Each structure stands twice: as C-alpha cells, then as structure tokens.
C-alpha cells in the first residue's frame, strides 16, 4: 500500500475542491477503499475524509413519505430505520441483506453506490484488463461465473451494490456536489454502461461527491420487495437480486409496476418488458412467471454464467409475488 495522508475538509465545497486535485480519493466508511489501497488498485496521495463533514449521516423523512438520505448514513442505519421501512421496505431489506453486521456498521450509502466492481480480474493487481486501461477483458475467455448476463461488453462486470437496484426502482435522485456547485441526477443515469467507457461505472466527474439521495414516496398503496440469492449465506455477494414495486387499483389490477434486477448487469437492470406484462394484469403465479420470463429475455450469458438466468428469473418472480402479497413458499 502506498503511503497517503488523510485530510479533513471544512465543508462540502472544500471537499469537492480537494477532490478535484489529482491523486485524491474520497474516504467514507473505507470498506472498499481500504481494500483497493491494499491491493494497490488505488494509490492516492491523499484521502479526503468525508466523515469530517457534519450533517451528512441523517435520514430525513417528509410527511408524504419521501426520504432524504445523507451519503454517510450507514447500511445499518438504513436497515434499522422505521421511516425507511415504512414506505421503502425494499431499500431497508437491500441494506439488511448486504455483507455482515460489522460491515453494515461501517459501510455508507455513498460508498456503497460508488464502490468498485468485484470482478476477480479487476481485483487482481497482477492483471491489467480493459477496466484498468489494458487491452482486453479477461472475463470474456476466462472464468466468468459471476459476470454479467445482461448489458455486458466490452467489460462484463456486475454492479455490486445492493442499494442501487432498490434506489433505481424507487426513482431516487442524487445530488452531486462538484467544485463548481451542485447538480441533480436521476440515479438511473448515474450508473453508466461499459459501452460508454469500460474504465468507469458511474457519471461522477473528478471532484464530485454524492451529497444527498432523494427518494420520492412510491405511489399510494404501492408495496415493494427486495430478494437476493447468495451462493453462501454468510459474507457473500448476491448472484442475482430483484426489486419489485407494485400498486393495484380498486379492481385489483396492477396499475404501477417497477422491476429492477441487481448483480446481473454492469448497472442496475430495469426490466420494462416485465413491467409491461404486469401492467393491467391481476397478479397470480402465472403472471409473475411470465413477467420473470420477460425480464430475462435478451440475456446473453458467457461460457460459465448461464445458470444466473434461472436464478435471476426466480428472484424476479419471488419479488413480484412478495410485493403482491402472495405467499412465498421458500420462507
């Protein structure tokens, strides 16, 4: 690990100015950043300690149910907050399912959204792949059991964040604070596909800090669910996850549907075709099945990850059923 200094900004603008200098990284909980430093995948001279900033670790809720989440809120806070659980249970569950209790006490929302991918070629300091400025993606002809089945190419990472699919489903907006002031960005536009630039995963420009996450209230009566499948139950990342938000009209027909998958694509993957099937339908197992089928249409697996397709399908179906209040047979 290269030697570095930790510097403390006085306020957000100062932090943004500090981060705009070359060879600096934002430090939040440090869960991912320390790993990157130890593996020498990041070698900043200075860490700008966001924890020195006050007021960014709060969850504020409006009477209508909308949330404003500070970037330094921990995953534990998110999982334990009655305000979040009230209208955004999928977000609370996404946080609760991530990592381990110790990690959830450290890991922050901002850091969770900006964490780097888990691709084992990326994480291996001896390998220089496309994402690190090299000439090829080693996953294509290599070991790719955990890689993308949707939206991949030329890099095939999956977005590792549990929170991302939930926040996309709830239509969150990020406030990004840069050296020249703040801008707002829909979270769906925050995450970027490798097609645009395989070296990056999001739209942050140098100096920009995720300063707030605004999550509107879901439509009245909407119910939501987050489900993930892990190979291992302790200390593991999901193979696939799904968020479903459903709202029914008086007649019992679905009038609002949101389906977003995690861990299957380089970005949180929304499934409009599944939403279309749900729209106007009366929910039963067959409908959920068809929607799940549609969600994975177009999946293009690599040599070793086709098995993720049925898993993702099962997650989508179960999330829909759970959001729709239909008994889950796996519990």
């Amino acid at each position, binding site marked *: 690990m290269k030697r570095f200094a930790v510097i403390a900004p006085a306020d957000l603008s100062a932090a943004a100015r500090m981060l705009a200098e070359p060879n600096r990284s934002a430090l939040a909980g440090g869960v991912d950043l320390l790993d990157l430093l130890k593996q020498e995948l990041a070698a900043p001279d200075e860490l700008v300690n966001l924890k020195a900033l006050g007021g960014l670790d709060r969850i504020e809720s409006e009477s209508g149910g909308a949330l404003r989440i500070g970037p330094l809120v921990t995953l534990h806070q998110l999982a334990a907050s009655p305000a979040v659980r009230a209208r955004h249970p999928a977000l609370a569950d996404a946080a609760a399912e991530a990592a381990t209790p110790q990690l959830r006490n450290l890991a922050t929302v901002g850091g969770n959204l900006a964490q780097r991918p888990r691709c084992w070629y990326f994480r291996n300091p001896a390998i220089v792949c496309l994402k690190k400025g090299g000439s090829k993606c080693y996953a294509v002809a290599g070991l790719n059991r955990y890689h993308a089945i949707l939206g991949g190419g030329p890099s095939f990472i999956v977005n590792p964040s549990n929170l991302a699919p939930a926040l996309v489903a709830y239509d969150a907006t990020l406030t990004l604070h840069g050296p020249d002031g703040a801008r707002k960005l829909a979270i769906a536009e925050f995450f970027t596909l490798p097609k645009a630039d395989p070296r990056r995963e999001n739209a942050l420009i140098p100096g920009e800090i995720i300063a707030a996450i605004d999550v509107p209230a879901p439509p009245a009566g909407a119910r939501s669910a987050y489900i993930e499948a892990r190979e291992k*139950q302790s200390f593991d990342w999901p193979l696939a996850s799904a968020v479903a938000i459903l709202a029914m009209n008086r007649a019992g027909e679905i009038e609002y549907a949101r389906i977003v998958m995690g861990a299957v694509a380089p970005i949180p993957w929304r499934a409009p075709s599944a939403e279309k099937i749900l729209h106007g339908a009366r929910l039963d197992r067959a409908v959920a099945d068809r929607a799940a089928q549609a969600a994975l249409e177009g999946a293009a697996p690599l040599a070793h990850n086709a098995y993720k397709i049925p898993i993702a399908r099962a997650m989508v179906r179960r999330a829909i059923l759970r959001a729709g209040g239909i008994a889950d047979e796996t519990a």
Partner: protein
Amino acid sequence: MARRVTLRLGFEGELRDVVVTIPDDEPAPWQWGEKFSVVGVATPRLDGPLKATGRAPYTCDIQLPGMLYGAILRSPYPHARVRSVDLGAARRLAGVRAALERSGATIRFAGQEVAAVAAVSPEIARDALRLIKVEYAPMPFVVAMDEASRPDAPDVFESGGNVGSPHLNEIGNVAAGFETAAASVDAVYTTPVQTHVSLETHGAVASWNGDELTVWCSTQGIFGVRDDLAVHFSLPPENVRVITAYLGGGFGSKFGAGHEVIFAAELARMARAPVKLMLSRAEEHVATGNRPSSRQHVRIGAARDGALTALELEQHGSGGIGGGSGSAAPYLSLYRCPNLRTSEHNVNINAGPASPMRAPGWPQGCFALELAIDELARKLNLDRLEMRRRNNPSPVRALEFELGARAFRWEERARAPKARGPMRRGVGVASAVWHGIGASGPQAQCVAFRDGRVAVRIGTQDVGTGTRTIIAMVAAEELGLPLSSVIAEIGDTRYLFSLPSGGSMTAPSTTPAVRQAAAHLKGKLMRLAAPALGAEPEDLVISDGVVRVRAEPNRAMQFADLCRRISGDSLAADGEHVPNYGGYSMTQAGCQFAGVEVDIETGIVRVVDFVAVHDAGAIVDPLTARSQVNGGIIMGVGFALFEDRRLDPQTGLMVNPTMDDYKLPGVLDTPEIRAYFVEVANGITNTGVLGLGEAVHVAAAAAIGCAVADAIGAPVRDLPLTPDRVLAALGRV
C-alpha cells in the same frame, strides 16, 4: 522389565478381556469402566480467555527490538525461466537492510518465490519489492489437469510427461466380480483443489545470536522446523530453537521449514537483525500447499442383497507441481469388497504444490465412493443405510449406524416427502475410518515445585485442537490434583521431543508420555511422603490434592505440604510413549448423517443438520472433542459446497486468492451439529486416547453429496455443489 496385564476392553455390547504386555514402569492402562475425576469432564480450553482477549502471543504478535520486516517477490508467470534478477535499486532504497534472490530458479507456478527483502517497515519492504527488476523468459504452461494429461500439453518439468506412473492395488478378480453383480454403476466424479486457509498465515520471526538461531514460527512441527533449519545452515540441531506458543491452524500445510521460514532466517543473518516474515492471504492460497484435485472414474457392482462384488477406481489428481493426490484409501478400507482394483495417477500442472491436508485423499475418495454406493443402492432399490450395513466391516460402526440413525431419525427422514414449494429436502449418510492411534517418540517431563504447582512440559504444539488443555488434564488425573494446580508448557524445542501435530497423532501420542511422566513423578513424590506418613510408598494414594494411606484415609497430608519437603527447587520425572501395544482395535470407525435443503429454482444448497457418531477412544475433554467434530464438519461443508482454487487459463493466476472469492462457510452456512461418541476402551496405550482431527472430516462432504442427490433425485458428481451444477443436474440450465 515387562509385565502382563489383563484389561477389560471394547465397547458397550462387545467387551472382552485382553492380555497386553507392558514395560514395568508403565502405569496400568486405562480400561473399560475406569473412574476418572478430571478426564472426561467437559473443560473449557485453558488458553481460551487468552485467545479470546488477544493476549495469546501468536507468531505475528512477536516484536523484538530492532526487528525488520521481510517480504517476498513472487513470479507473475506460471512457467518461465528467470534470466536475471537485479536487486540494486531495492537495496538502495532507504530502510532496506537485506535482499536476496533465489538464483537460477525455473518458475513452474505463478506465485513461486523469486527474491526477498527485509526492511525497517512492512511498507518499505513492499516498496522495495517493486524496485526489483526481474527478466523472465515466459514458457508455455498448463493449469487444467485434463489439458495437462493430453500428449501435446506443455511439459511442466523438463523430464517431460505430466502424468505420473500409476500406483496400483489389486485384490481378487474384478472382472469376475462384475459378472456376478446384479447391478453396477460406472461414473466419473471430480473434486476441486482445496486450500487450507489457516486463519493464521505461514510465517516466522528469526533471530540470530552468533551461530545460535531462535525462530518463532507458525508450525505444526517445531522439531521438524528445527531440523530443516539446522541442515540448511549446517548447524547442530541444538543451536536452533523453535518456539510455537500459539498457532492459528495448519491442517497439514505447516510441517517443516517452508521457504518463508528459510527466507526469514537468511535475511536476519544478512541484516544482522531479527526479521519477521508473515505471508499475506494471497500468498497463503497460492504457495503453501493444497488438497489436490481428483477425477475418479468409479465402477462398482453389487449382488441383489447389496453385498459389493466388485469395485474399481481409476484416479487422476493434481495439486500443482507435486504432491500425492491418491484417493484410493477409502476404497480399500471403508467397506468389504472381495474384488478390488485401484489405480492412482499424479498429474503435474503449473500451480503451487500440494501438501497434506486433513485426511489426505480421504474426503475426495469418500465423496466419490459414497455417492456411487448411493447410485447403486437406488438401482437395487435398497435403503442406502441398509446397503452400507451389509458391507460394513466394523462392529463399532454397526453400533454407530444404529445410534446415528436413531438420533437423525433416518428411517422417517429417508422416506419423508421431499418437496415444499421449490425446496427439496434430502438426507445422506457416509462412513469414516481413521487410524488416530498415535506413535512412539514423544517424551514428557513433569515437574513438581515447592509451592505445590506442577508443570507438564512437552515439545508438542497446539494446532488449535486443545492439546495444552488435555495434556494438563491427563497429568492432573494421574497425579490426583485439581486441574488448576497443573500448568502445561508446550511449543518449544527446549522441551523434550514430540511428534508433529498431524495425522490425528497428537492426543494419542502425547497423552501416554505425559501420563507416564506424571506416574513417575507420583512415584518419586510417594517415596518422599512415605516416611512422613509412616507407610510404604505403594500404600499411598493421592486424590483431590491430598495424599493418604490407602487403608487408613485419615492418615493424610496435603499435596502442597508434601511439596514443601522437596529439597532444592523442584522434583522432575520424565516419561515416554512406549510402542503401542496390540489392544482391542487399531482402527477407528465413524459415520455421519447430513440433512440438506435445495432450492431447485436457484440451485442453492443449505446444509441443515448433521449427526456425527465417532469412536475416539477415551475422551479426555468432551468439549475439545466436540470442537473437533464441529470443525471437521464445517470444513466438509466448505469442501462440499463452496471451495475451489480457481486458476485462470489465460494467465495461470489464481483468480480467487482472497477470503471473499475463495468461499468458506460462515455462521449462516453452518448446520446444526450433534456429536455422539462411542467410547471404545482400546488398550493401545496407557490412555487409550485416539486422535479425532481427521476421522471427523473424512465423511462430511460425502454425506452432503449423498443428501443433495437424494433431495433433487439426481447425483451431482462434481464438487463443489455450486448452483450451476445443481441446476444442470436438474436440467434447468
């Protein structure tokens, strides 16, 4: 010199009198129905609080004045000639005190050591590694066993040919055996390379004083490390002292002085300062050994009643550039079969070498054999436990099957409906054999001090199994003292010799030596007490810390008062492990039952519960015995479901040399485990203690594999049982 004693030996339901010949100075061996006061009592580890509070000094905790930190440069290429190594820039870096290279090395695996440095901080040492200029001439490589077996594969060694000559075993006539079979199975099973993942990585602190070398080392065998270092540096062994006070696991990977220990000592000599060199987790995964992979082609046949008629194994296995991969042992001894043929081949690939790992060859062999037996039982329409009973050679295991089946509710669960929504339940049972009978060699010393405390000293090491605790318990038992009066001192080559801690040898090998030493000390103490109590030494007994005249218990003295009569500082006596005498049985039977739940839509397997029944001879500490069972099964869960050293075909690098990508079971992956012991008075030694470390691991993955096949109605013949394979077996991908 020798005497004959008649012992009541065996187990509940099968006891007999056996005459054994033992040396005169050997205490009477414990036998069936022996009454104990310390032994057999559930006792928390004596060093538990030290470990739990971080005060137990492990090797990486050792800090010496002026100590430097070592680091190793490793090859990024799996096969290369090292043209040149330039240490100049590294040596010139401020804070670097020594640098050396492995001259003339041909690299045969990615991660092989090339050079090493010592510097005033670990960070400077790492910086220095980056300044070492190495010119490699890369060569073609092969990291997959199947590919390495092809005639056109790159040769791992110049001598050519990656597939070794077969090791054969043949009994009876296999062809004839298959002719009489009513049904048979012919299938290929595979198991992955598993790494040891000891929580404490390999490493050492080396310190020279003239031509005397002291090494604190994370090792399972302090004397082996001492001897290797003595040879390497041409020193008499007594000039080398090795200390392992606490050890964070080894599982077979920590015998002898590994390259990291040699580097630490060489760097310390060059720098004229102590050097600490601990490996990183990634280095641990690639360069310190592994359980080799296996590809097992099994043919097995049985008569209509389930009796095996023929069994054949064609096995290939590879850990890397060396190490025995054989997995035939269970085929030869788990079940009765008149016609047997096994053929084992080692295959070399460009990867780190294998090393022994917890029951080498057995978990692999058991997985394939037990799953094949299940497949055969299904064809014959026999209950799978019944099939095993028919072929079981061990009367102890027959009882264990009964106890286990009752505790597990086998009859009911094997017939219960499998499905609940997408979940499928299944059960499996598998057998274990081990030979944790120990060996002679260990010697121990017991010392009574004038303040009434007793120390037991022996040059063994506690690999994490509770050795320190059970040694103290055995000495306390023999001396009639409360455990709190006894201190166990281990982990130093200054103490009397003991064997490496491996092969389930530690408890059975050390406890008889400790008991003899304690008995000898007791003899000396009785001679000291006799005049004071006006009795003959033979008429005295000690219990609960009081010495009494047997016939007149009121004539007594406190042990502490007796110790004040010791002239000088202390009274010491030695003892040894005399060669094992033929007792009741030299093998050790076990069986394990597993219950699993499989989600057929995701292929994810959860191990729900385990019942383990084992013969452990005399159980010294039921708590540490239970810990062994827990550890053996949890490691089996890892082998069955998760673990796999994955090598990238493009670069030859291991892609998962971490603890998140190399997946180990965690709390939520750990089943409910119930352990039962069938106490067998075996009369092999004066304690009759057997080692449990391996017996408890042999069958675990096999039982899980069988349970998964039962749950989904199809065998998954390749470990680990990852979702992709389970879904493929279900026809869902």
